[in-house]
């Protein structure tokens, strides 16, 4: 506790820490603990039964699996997008820049309906994809993946963009004057600096995707054991007035998400140490 009392030129430590704790409690901790308190009405065996029923188990796999994959896809293509926006100037750049935030602004249900119309068997893209490749998109996990990629895109772009802007092109020039190829310069000089931002963007996109409901629900088709996402399981429990069942599933989602985000954070601070940023 000594460190808390140390002299600092930045005033207001007590006030701001107090404010942070109160605010965080009111906005985040109280509602979340309500979930656990509500869940505790169930006995342990009842709880276990609810959260491990086959349909729910299938939904975990689907939700976390597609969210992870969608966040990974966004991590790759979000970096490419950010790269284009930072490094090149082209006509209409401002418009492209603004378009990236659109998935944020659009009501998720609208996005869901639009994507469903597009990828359904008789939709513009759905027709082509099913006709030529024989792949069904709408009402399958692939459809869910597309919706999650859509809503997660801005997270990676917006976290990587400012960091990329900060990287001096001199670093790459230095690398190539030392004989590094373009690929080597990107791999050894640019990527390590970008990695923490990419991981943050990945974590945000992942967290958002896990909790996403509106845009997924239309394109998913909600076939039991195939394309039911976990938030849907919660809603359907609610519709049956099974509140404790809903919060039970919610508590599992919360715990898993929290563990995954914590892991990503740990990984991030580990890479930071590896590259001397905390030293």
């Amino acid at each position: 506790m000594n460190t808390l009392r140390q002299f600092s030129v930045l005033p207001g430590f007590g006030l701001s820490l107090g404010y942070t704790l109160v605010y965080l409690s009111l906005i985040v901790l109280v509602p979340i603990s309500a979930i656990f308190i509500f869940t505790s009405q169930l006995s342990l065996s009842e709880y276990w039964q609810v959260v491990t029923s086959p349909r729910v188990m299938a939904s975990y796999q689907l939700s976390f699996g597609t969210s992870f994959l969608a966040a990974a896809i966004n991590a790759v293509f979000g970096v490419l997008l950010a790269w284009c926006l930072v490094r090149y100037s082209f006509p209409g750049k401002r418009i492209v820049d603004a378009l990236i935030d659109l998935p944020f602004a659009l009501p998720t249900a609208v996005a869901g309906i639009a994507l469903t119309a597009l990828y359904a068997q008789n939709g513009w893209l759905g027709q082509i994809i099913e006709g030529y490749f024989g792949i069904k998109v709408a009402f399958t996990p692939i459809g869910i993946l597309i919706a999650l990629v859509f809503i997660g895109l801005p997270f990676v772009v917006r976290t990587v963009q400012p960091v990329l802007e900060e990287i001096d092109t001199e670093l790459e020039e230095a690398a190539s004057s030392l004989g590094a190829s373009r690929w080597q310069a990107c791999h050894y000089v640019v990527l390590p600096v970008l990695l923490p931002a990419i991981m943050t963007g990945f974590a945000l996109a992942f967290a958002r995707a896990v909790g996403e409901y509106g845009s997924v629900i239309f394109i998913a088709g909600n076939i039991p054991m195939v394309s039911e996402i976990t938030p849907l399981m919660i809603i359907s429990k609610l519709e049956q007035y099974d509140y404790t069942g809903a919060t039970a599933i919610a508590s599992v989602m919360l715990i898993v998400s929290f563990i995954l985000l914590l892991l990503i954070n740990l990984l991030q601070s580990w890479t930071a140490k590896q590259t001397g940023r905390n030293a």
Partner: protein
Amino acid sequence: MSINVNNIHKQFGEFTALNDISLDFPSGELVALLGPSGCGKTTLLRIIAGLEQADHGDIILDGENASNTHVRDRQVGFVFQHYALFKHMTIFDNVAFGLRMKPKAQRPSESKIREKVLSLLHLVQLDWLADRFPAQLSGGQRQRIALARALAVEPRVLLLDEPFGALDAKVRKELRRWLRKLHDELHITSIFVTHDQEEALEVADRVVLMDHGKVEQVGTPEAVYNHPQTPFVYSFLGSVNVFHGRAEQEHLQVGNEQLRHHNEPYGYAEDVFAFARPHELKIVDNNHHEGVSARISRVLSFGIETKVELDGLNESSGQHYEVHLSQQQRKTQPLHIGQMVKLVPSALALFPRELETSAQAQRLSEQQG
């Protein structure tokens, strides 16, 4: 290795950065590219390195045309003003970078790399910093590491872009002495860019003076300082006083005052710029028969010399002059602020005032003022 620059031209939109430049850099010399900011010196250096492409003209490295060779194949070491060290790597990894990036067939073994990096760190006298990260080093140390990193790949040429520009005055002075020593040991052809005339004159074997995308003069530090060939060089190197006047016979007419110009008599009258170094001016009584009137505005008498700053009067009002007196002279001559005096040059360098140079020298005399 020698470097030849042939008719290099570079345009940025409307702005001509380099206007048909041709220069030869003989093997083993340390050459300074000196000029005010925006004169094109950094652009020229970057074109030599291959970091920038000229609109036309050729870069010949060691007799071979390298104009279309990529920077990674030119074997030039480049040192940036802001070091450009890789922040996420240790000092050791930074210096080893160039060696590790070599294609597998040419890459030395890890133990050879280790040996080489340690010897380079020893050369720049920073072997004890191998495991640190760049953020933990001072500016001067970072720049020495940047130099070691550039030397690791055994470049044929070393190019330094304002290498000491971001350092404070004391470190700067230390480092430039150190760079000179290093060059004397390695004898690698080196070009460094600077806007600091003292730095250029002290360190370089030869100085290339540039202004507005053109080479103004090339020569040894002694030659360019003692025998400036253009008004630009005269005013850029060291402090200088300018008189705008008309030369006729043995006299220079400045407004309605007259001076002797100590040059060959002019057979015809011509508008000229007349330059005099601060020690080439004498302060005389206000009622002296010749000289340019001025008023003393400041007397700085620390150091070996006394510096007297004066404001021009009459025709030359708005103009500033600087005169250096030895302490001896200072003792025999009472000077006080606000005193009206006349300035008499013991030597003047005259340059005809053509239209083009006029604008240039005007700008420079403003800078000097």
